[in-house]
Structure formats: structure tokens, C-alpha cells
């Protein structure tokens, strides 16, 4: 039953990194009538596990990174049984940033021209230099913490004071220095001082289950208050089910969303933007078929859903004798090392990885992991085993660059989910190149830990529940045959349909993609404004 029919200038589907940044940029610089449709709801800071003493128990339920555990009604089913890496996205206002670690580095200039430099994969249709002003813009808006002067990047103009390293970070920093490896304090979407209504980080640790202080710059806390004040309309629990094309199928005429009471609303707009990220975007495109687009809307290239990149992760851990307060501080933000980021012909793989130093777990998780790995035993040695590990564990992840391969893909199953949309399935294998990266990366990580005298050094790769970074499934490019959108994020096949999320990525780099998604979305927003008003002057 259709209950409403409404008309806007721009309709955005998805309120996470892509949709949130795009809505903000549009609303800051224009008077366009903008609506954003979000299938989930607001995450209430008062319900985050970190409000409660038993946060380590609670984080394994409603705010678990595993959608199969948290039972969020807005999460749609994803069949990842054919993938060694399990999907860990979050549906709600702010998208997956609600549960992200706040690690917020830029991609490198080389990431945009992998084919030119290494003769593999593809080049982006835009360069680092095109995106640099938008990186600056987003870093300033989110008030990213860090230090300028990092030799791994072209100059970054300004950052807020960095998150302190703490004794654990300092110990590792000395190790990096002794080995002559690059390292830098993390670029963190984390407040190191009170700002407006958002508190500063108080170093409790568990950013990945929601930040009760609002210190973490998730999209719901940073972008949406501003965008709503600017007049953007955000409709939650709005499940978009259909994209209607015009009579000659050259443009999107309207989208239909369903409310929880099953009433349907038709939204008409001049411009439509899909920002549902690497699985949600192909899910929506592939599930809408027409006589022109028999294999899914805007899929004349056949590449919608293809080239899925997931950033396989490795994890390395060891322990030291000294208490280095390793559980204190924002979980994912301490140090990053990009010593092994780009291709080195001396190695047996292309491209590389970032080392991301992590804070260690709280007492309960430390114990449960220790029991699992036989490092802690019940019985007489229980507490002494615990004391050997708690606040003495050093750990980091290695994020491997995942190169695009068409066989790694999102496709739709015949069965539909609870929303009546076919269930997306993942077909994904870790490539030989990525396996070599992970092997080298875990060996390098072990070398670092052994160098600083750590004991019980262990490494695992790939980590199974680590499918946070979902990229490449509607890539941008200059040719309609080899890409889904052009360099402005506009679908080649349709006049008014844009994409603004991680699915645009041509290559993945080896950094957390949130900042690049947000910068890319702001860049796309400027293109949309310019298109709707050619006299508009872009100010950055």
C-alpha cells in the first residue's frame, strides 16, 4: 500500500560514511532539498556496552561486530559460507562507523595508479591529487587526531593533537626505530579534547562496540547532527526495495521504500545516490531488473558485484614481562607502520600491507582468549597465568592490500530475505598474491615482537570475522565497458544515478577505507551541485 509520494532534489540511500558525508557536503554548500533513507535506526549512546560494568560481556550481544550475533532487525542476511572471511557490516544511522575503530588514514598516491606503477589491477580515474582537498576537508571537519609530517604521505596540512602512545606504544615505537622501519602515530577519528557536545577519549578501550562518550568520530555523531540542522531529512527504518526507471530506462524516476508497518513510500528526485557500501549497493542494483537491464540496474558492464575486495587481516601477538598498560587507550588507534606498503621488487608479491598496532583486551577477553590458547589454565595457576598476560600483551593487525579479481563477487541467491529482497551471497577466495602478503606480514610482525623481547609470540592469518572493509563491487572508471560509474560516481548507464561508497574503489590500498569513502562522497557531492547549478563555485 502506497501511503505517500514525495519529491526532492537529491535522494540518498544509506546514511553511513558515503551517504552521511555526501548529505553533509550537499547541505553545507547548497539549498537543495535532500532526503536520506536509512534501513536501520539510531544507535543510542546510552545503550552502548561501555556504559556498563559488564561491557566485555555485553559487547558480544547487541553491539557485536558479528551480524549473526547482534540480531539487529535492520541487518539483512548475507550468505558468506563460500568465503574464508565473514562479513561484519552494521546497518543503522552512521553505518559501520558506529562499530569502527576510528583508524582514519588516507590512501597513498600510489594506490590510485597501481597499473601505471606495477602493471597489475587498474588505475583509478581520479588521482590522489584530485582527492587531496577532500581529504583535507574531511580531516578538518571530523577533527582527526594525529601528527603532521609523516614521510609516508605528501604533506597533510593540519591535525588535532594525537592520541598518546602509552607505554605499550612507546615500547613498540622503539622496536620500529631499532629495525629502521617506518611508523607514525595513528590518524584517529577520536577526540583528544572536548569538542562541542562530544567528549574526549577517556581511554577505556573498546571503541568497536560504540563510544558512549561520543569521542569516536562515527558518522552518526559527527555528520548527522550538522546535516539535520542544515535541513536534510533523514528517514530511518526505511527499507528501499525498488528503483523505478523512466519510460525509456535512461534515468531513475523514483525509489520505493517500505516502513516497518509495510506501508510503501515513493520518493521522486532529480538525482539518486546509492551509498549502501560493498554489499548493500550491488544487492540493490542486482535485485532490480528491467527489460533494458536484465542482469540488474546499471549493470551493462556485468561488473556490479564483481571485484569484491575485503582486506584480509593477520593478527600477531606476544607478551612482555613489564606492565605496559596495553589495555588502556582507544582499541584500534596507537601506531601505524607503512614500511611495507608499496611494491618492492625484492619481495614475491605486489603491493603490501599496513601494520596497525592495537590496544589489548580487557580482563575477561584476555582470560577467555588465554584459556582458548592454553596460555591460561583453570586451577592453581589461574591468577598467575592471568597476571602474566593482562596489560602485558602487545598486539597488532596487518591489513593486506586485496587486489581486484572478478571471481571475488557478490551475487544474489534465489531465496529472498525477510525484506523480500534476494539474499546476497559472497564468493570469495584469498588470492595467491594476498596469501604471500599475509605470510610476509605475519613473519615481519613476529620479527618485530621477538626483537623487543616478547614471549609466546603467535600469529594468525587470515582472521575470519574481519570482513569490515567492503570494496570494489561497483567500481569507477573511464570506460562503460570496464566500470560501473564514471569518475564522478555517476553510473555510466543512467543519467541521474550515482554511487558514493566503498563499492567505487578500483583498488583497495591497505588502509582502513572510511576516510577515503567520506572524501570521495564529498567530492561526488560537489560534482552533483555543479551539475545542478553550473554557476556554483566550489570552495574547499
Amino acid at each position: 500500500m502506497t501511503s505517500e509520494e514525495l519529491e526532492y532534489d537529491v535522494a540518498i540511500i544509506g546514511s553511513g560514511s558515503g551517504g552521511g558525508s555526501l548529505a553533509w557536503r550537499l547541505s553545507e554548500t547548497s539549498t537543495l532539498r535532500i532526503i536520506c533513507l536509512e534501513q536501520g535506526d539510531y544507535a543510542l549512546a546510552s545503550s552502548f556496552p561501555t556504559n556498563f560494568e559488564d561491557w566485555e560481556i555485553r559487547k558480544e550481544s547487541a553491539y557485536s561486530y558479528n551480524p549473526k550475533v547482534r540480531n539487529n532487525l535492520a541487518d539483512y542476511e548475507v550468505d558468506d559460507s563460500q568465503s574464508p572471511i565473514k562479513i561484519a557490516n552494521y546497518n543503522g544511522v552512521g553505518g559501520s562507523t558506529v562499530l569502527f575503530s576510528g583508524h582514519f588514514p588516507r590512501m597513498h598516491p600510489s594506490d590510485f595508479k597501481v597499473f601505471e606503477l606495477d602493471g597489475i589491477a587498474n588505475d583509478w580515474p581520479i588521482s590522489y591529487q584530485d582527492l587531496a582537498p577532500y581529504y583535507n576537508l574531511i580531516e578538518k571537519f571530523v577533527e582527526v587526531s594525529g601528527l603532521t609530517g609523516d614521510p609516508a604521505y605528501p604533506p597533510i596540512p593540519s591535525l588535532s593533537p594525537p592520541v598518546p602512545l602509552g607505554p605499550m606504544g612507546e615500547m613498540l615505537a622503539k622496536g620500529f626505530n631499532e629495525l629502521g622501519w617506518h611508523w607514525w602515530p595513528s590518524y584517529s577519528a577520536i577526540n583528544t579534547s572536548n569538542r562541542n557536545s562530544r567528549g574526549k577519549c577517556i581511554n577505556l578501550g573498546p571503541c568497536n562496540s560504540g563510544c558512549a562518550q561520543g569521542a569516536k568520530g562515527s558518522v552518526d555523531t559527527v555528520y548527522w547532527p550538522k546535516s539535520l540542522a542544515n535541513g536534510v531529512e533523514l528517514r530511518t527504518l526505511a527499507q528501499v526495495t525498488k528503483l523505478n526507471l523512466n519510460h525509456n530506462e535512461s534515468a531513475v524516476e523514483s525509489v520505493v521504500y517500505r516502513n516497518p508497518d509495510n506501508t510503501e513510500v515513493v520518493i521522486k528526485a532529480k538525482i539518486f545516490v546509492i551509498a549502501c557500501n560493498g554489499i548493500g549497493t550491488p544487492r540493490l542494483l542486482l535485485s532490480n531488473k528491467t527489460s533494458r537491464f536484465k542482469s540488474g540496474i546499471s549493470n551493462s558492464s556485468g561488473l556490479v558485484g564483481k571485484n569484491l575486495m575485503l582486506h584480509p587481516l593477520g593478527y600477531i601477538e606476544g607478551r612482555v614481562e613489564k606492565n605496559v598498560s596495553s589495555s588502556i587507550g582507544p582499541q584500534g588507534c596507537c601506531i601505524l607502520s607503512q614500511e611495507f606498503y608499496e611494491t618492492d621488487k625484492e619481495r614475491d608479491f605486489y603491493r603490501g600491507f599496513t601494520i596497525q598496532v592495537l590496544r589489548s583486551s580487557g580482563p575477561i577477553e584476555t582470560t577467555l582468549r588465554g584459556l582458548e590458547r592454553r596460555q591460561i589454565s583453570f586451577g592453581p595457576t589461574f591468577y598467575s597465568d592471568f597476571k602474566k598476560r593482562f596489560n602485558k600483551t602487545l598486539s597488532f593487525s596487518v591489513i593486506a592490500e586485496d587486489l581486484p579479481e572478478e571471481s571475488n563477487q557478490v551475487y544474489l541467491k534465489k531465496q529472498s530475505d525477510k525484506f523480500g529482497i534476494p539474499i546476497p551471497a559472497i564468493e570469495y577466495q584469498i588470492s595467491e598474491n594476498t596469501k604471500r602478503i599475509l605470510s610476509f606480514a605475519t613473519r615481519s610482525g613476529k620479527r618485530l615482537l621477538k626483537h623487543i623481547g616478547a614471549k609466546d609470540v603467535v600469529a594468525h592469518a587470515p582472521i575470519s570475522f574481519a570482513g569490515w572493509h567492503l570494496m570494489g563491487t561497483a567500481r569507477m572508471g573511464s570506460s562503460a565497458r570496464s566500470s560501473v560509474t564514471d569518475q564522478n560516481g555517476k553510473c555510466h548507464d543512467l543519467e541521474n544515478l550515482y554511487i558514493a561508497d566503498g563499492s567505487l574503489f578500483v583498488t583497495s590500498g591497505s588502509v582502513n577505507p572510511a576516510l577515503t569513502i567520506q572524501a570521495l562522497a564529498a567530492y561526488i557531492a560537489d560534482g552533483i551541485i555543479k551539475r545542478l547549478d553550473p554557476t556554483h563555485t566550489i570552495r574547499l
Partner: protein
Amino acid sequence: VSQLLDQAFVALLDYMIPPLDPQGLSGSQIWQHNELGIEIYIEYSSLARENLDFPKTFADGREAVVDSERFLNLLVYLQCNHGKFYRRFVRKLVGDVFLNQRIQRDLLLPVSPPFPKGNNLPETDWSILEPVYNRRRNLGEAIGNNK
């Protein structure tokens, strides 16, 4: 709480979590017999009735003292044959241990939520980055061949 539990379960908890010091609390004193605690206890009792020799011999007094090997074997048995139950049980017990305020105090654990002040990290002396800057100067270009 231990009065609500049978002797064998008390003995198991006390073996798993011994007191931290002579005046400290043991597992059965720490165990919270809340809704989850009751559920787990009932499931354990049912498993014990059906499958385990040790709790029966312990409960009827035939075996008042059990050596550590017996407890370890029991835990291994539960882990191997009733993994889902074992994980719930262990998770609950470990949770009770580290949420116990006396244990937190005795182990000098850092503050945890919902305490509003949080934890402090000392300010970093960023001269520790000098080698990274110096290395860049020596290399003459950005580290990592970042053209």
C-alpha cells in the same frame, strides 16, 4: 550461593578458581547465581546425571576429595563433548570473577565503565619520532617508494 549448589559443583568451581590469597574468594563464592547462573547450573546438573561419574561419586560421599587430574579430565570432557555448554559456563564464570569488585581491587585492575573519569595515558614525548624523520632525510624521498 554455595548452599544452593551441590557439593560437586562447588568443588569444581573452587578448583577452577582458587582464592587469590589465603583470605581471598574461591570460585563458588564468586559465582553469581542469577538467571544465567541458574540456567547453567541446571544444564550442568542434567549433564552430570546423564553422563558423568565424578559428580555422583562425589555427592554420595564415596569421593570427598578429588585430585586435580580428575577435575582437569572433567573439564576436558565437557569441552570436547559439550562444547557449547562449556563455552557458556566458562564465559559466565570468568565474567563473574572479573566483575567481582574485591577481585578487581586485589588484582589492581584499571577502571572500567561506567566510571566517568576513565584511564589516563601519559603524554608522549614525540622526539621518539626523530629516527623516522632522519631516515627520510637520508633516503631523500618519501619512505616506501610512494611516488
